């Protein structure tokens, strides 16, 4: 039996107030989910120092982290549910599909090597029908595109020589699916006189944690911690363009590993917009931004909200003269990383996403801005608006300045 050494005592403060259940996007959509309170602190209280219980109902947890954000007693609910997921997949086994989905990096490497073919095949109905039958991946679900010219083929810089030095944790999405986001980030940094190094890195582990692949996820976590600490100890700041990877480096590594290294790394990690805001506050930000007469709707990913950093993307984009941006005020998108790619969860995923699609429609901006690639996937499927990353807009504003 898997014996996770989980020194997580915060559950003792749980008052069963239901704040997490009230704010859980899955609980609010289906009665099939056991809920964060029952499968987090209550389950932990029940089994602590007793026999481990494998509870199947945990499958519907997406690890969005809204439970952590809503808890008035600071119980680390999502840490507890992540372990419940790990126990479940250890004891009940992992579907081949979930194993594949959790290895976003391997999939990205393979899929992007055959980029054009992958995209073509993924868009073909017969192929998708087979995938649905063999893999339980619903035929209706849109997939992000894979790029042959992925970011690894484009950018090879391992060191930076400027005063401020950035170590960029690219993440699987910007590497294999959206190298334009990574390139925009490099450009934005360049306009600010900052060189960007890309350290050796593996998938942050979030898709693994979400699929109960805790052992593999923690292996990746340790690899990334060791690799990135070499940089932070030389004065680099670790900056990311994906809010889920940022959450992993800031919070999850610390919660799961509780190691000194994880804590040390966490204190050097910044979301890209948060980092630019920091430059702005210290008077270092290049303000040569060309005016843009556009109105954008902002969609806040759960893993951005959970960082407790306000709304840095809007703080930065509002600096562009004439640029209008409004938060659409929506909850979880329902894609939730790999969750929305699973046949048995597809319906729940769509139902969670519906209010988001309505919010985007209500605000009716020219296009939608969000940091998260997976949220973008759901926005692409459920709305008719183009979706952009904040770095793409900023790069454009810098490029057209004269």
């Amino acid at each position: 039996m898997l014996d996770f050494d989980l020194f997580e005592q915060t559950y003792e403060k749980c008052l069963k107030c239901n704040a997490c259940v009230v704010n859980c996007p899955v609980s609010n959509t289906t009665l099939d989910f056991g809920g964060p309170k029952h499968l987090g602190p209550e389950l932990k209280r029940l089994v602590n120092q007793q026999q481990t219980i494998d509870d199947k109902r945990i499958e519907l947890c997406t690890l969005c982290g809204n439970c952590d954000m809503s808890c008035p007693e600071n119980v680390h609910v999502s840490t507890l549910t992540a372990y419940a997921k790990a126990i479940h997949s250890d004891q009940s086994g992992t579907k081949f599909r979930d194993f594949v989905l959790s290895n976003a990096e391997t999939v990205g490497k393979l899929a992007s090597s055959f980029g054009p073919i992958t995209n073509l095949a993924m868009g073909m109905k017969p192929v998708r029908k087979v995938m649905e039958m063999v893999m339980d991946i619903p035929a209706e679900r849109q997939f992000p595109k894979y790029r042959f010219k992925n970011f690894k083929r484009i950018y090879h810089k391992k060191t930076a020589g400027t005063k401020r030095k950035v170590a960029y944790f690219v993440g699987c999405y910007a590497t294999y699916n959206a190298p334009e986001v990574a390139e925009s980030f490099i450009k934005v940094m360049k306009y600010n006189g900052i060189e960007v190094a890309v350290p050796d890195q593996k998938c942050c582990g979030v898709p693994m944690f979400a699929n109960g692949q805790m052992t593999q996820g923690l292996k990746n976590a340790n690899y990334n911690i060791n690799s990135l600490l070499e940089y932070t100890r030389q004065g680099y700041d670790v900056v990311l363009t994906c809010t889920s990877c940022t959450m992993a480096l800031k919070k999850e590594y610390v919660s799961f590993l509780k190691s000194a290294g994880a804590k040390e790394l966490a204190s050097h990690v910044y979301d890209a917009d948060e980092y630019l805001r920091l430059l702005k506050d210290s008077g270092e930000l290049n303000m040569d931004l060309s005016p843009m007469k556009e109105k954008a709707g902002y969609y806040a990913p759960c893993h951005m909200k959970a960082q407790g950093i306000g709304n840095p993307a809007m703080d930065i984009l509002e600096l562009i003269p004439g640029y209008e941006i409004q938060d659409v005020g929506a909850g979880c998108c329902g894609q939730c990383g790999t969750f929305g790619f699973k046949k048995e969860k597809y319906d729940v995923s769509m139902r969670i996403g519906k209010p988001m699609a309505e919010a985007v429609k209500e605000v009716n901006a020219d296009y939608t801005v969000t940091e998260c690639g997976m949220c973008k996937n759901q926005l692409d499927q459920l709305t008719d608006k183009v979706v952009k990353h904040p770095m793409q807009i900023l790069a454009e504003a810098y490029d057209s300045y004269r």
Partner: protein
Amino acid sequence: MFDVVVIGQGLSGLLSAISAKEQGFRTALVSIGSGKIIQSTGVMDLIPGSHGGLKEWMEFHQLTVGQKQGAIDAVEQFKELTERLGYPYSGDPEKPVQIVTGAGHVKTTTLYPQTIKPVPERGHVVVVGFQGISDFQPAYVAGNLHKHRPDLIIDTMKISLGKHSQRTMTQLDAARLLDQEEVRNECLTQIKQQLTEKNIRRPSLFIFPASLGIENWRKTVEQFTRELGTAVTEAPGMPPNATAIRLNERLKKQAVRLGIRFYSDTTVTGFKADGQMIQSLMIKTVNQVTELQGKQFVLATGGILGGGLEATPSGLKETALGLKTDEEGALLNCPVNLHPVGAANGLQNTQYGITGGIFSIVSAYQTINQVCQLASVEGGTRSA
């Protein structure tokens, strides 16, 4: 740098932040947890647990007669806001009404959403419960209600929502189910059937748990009223009450759409001050401590129940900023740009640990008007 930084996202905090932002001030809201509205009934009392009116309320909070109009104006402002947000509140502080709770207790309240109707002295009411919702037991409600309303004829029934749940169902779960038309139709069929079986004709009110829809509360109330041919009410009781969740969700959505910056899941660990002025708050985010600068600060952390005050063997402790308080929890030597609202004003403003809602509303609006005056004087231009 923010014009206004609000600590706490309960009723006082959200109203303060929304009001400040609507007046054009750059506003941040710092919070741990999702705020205490979700634990409430969503109805706004004058003095909780008391039948007192506006006069008694003013005495309770030691307000002068001159402050009465200000209080009434603040209540009007709240009603105007909730109307705009699609969840209007009814009621008049000068004319409190009596409503029934989820325990069958009759309580006096002042502002209530349109899903609630006052409970009559006489006539015929039917209490309807849902199977699986253990927090609302029709027989128990009827027994208690009978003590308060001996002249009322009370019938009870239980119906099924037709859905199996993998967890303990709450009133909120029921409310989300009743957002769906098929569930509403199924429920109405069962109610009508039981009315026939029990030979009940034309009751004057149906009493439900606080579950009559969330997004589609208006549709639910209209359909139930139409098809049952008489008024329906929610009886708010054990949280989560739909009455409160609707208010909470709408206030938050409004705050986010206005552009208030939410620093969620953060703990205030201290502050930096220049003499009697707070310069910035130190907030602990996931694994970093960051500094949040502001001109004016609003303390909306609540009393003992809200977590803003902690009762310790050596007396009361203010939890967010670690400020000294008197034995009632009111701040001593309050920094000049820190403004406590609602229950954060100390225990003399709470009964059974809560302010009853009206005090929070009045306190939030009045405080924020002063804050905004200060912010414009000191801050120069408004940066919306």
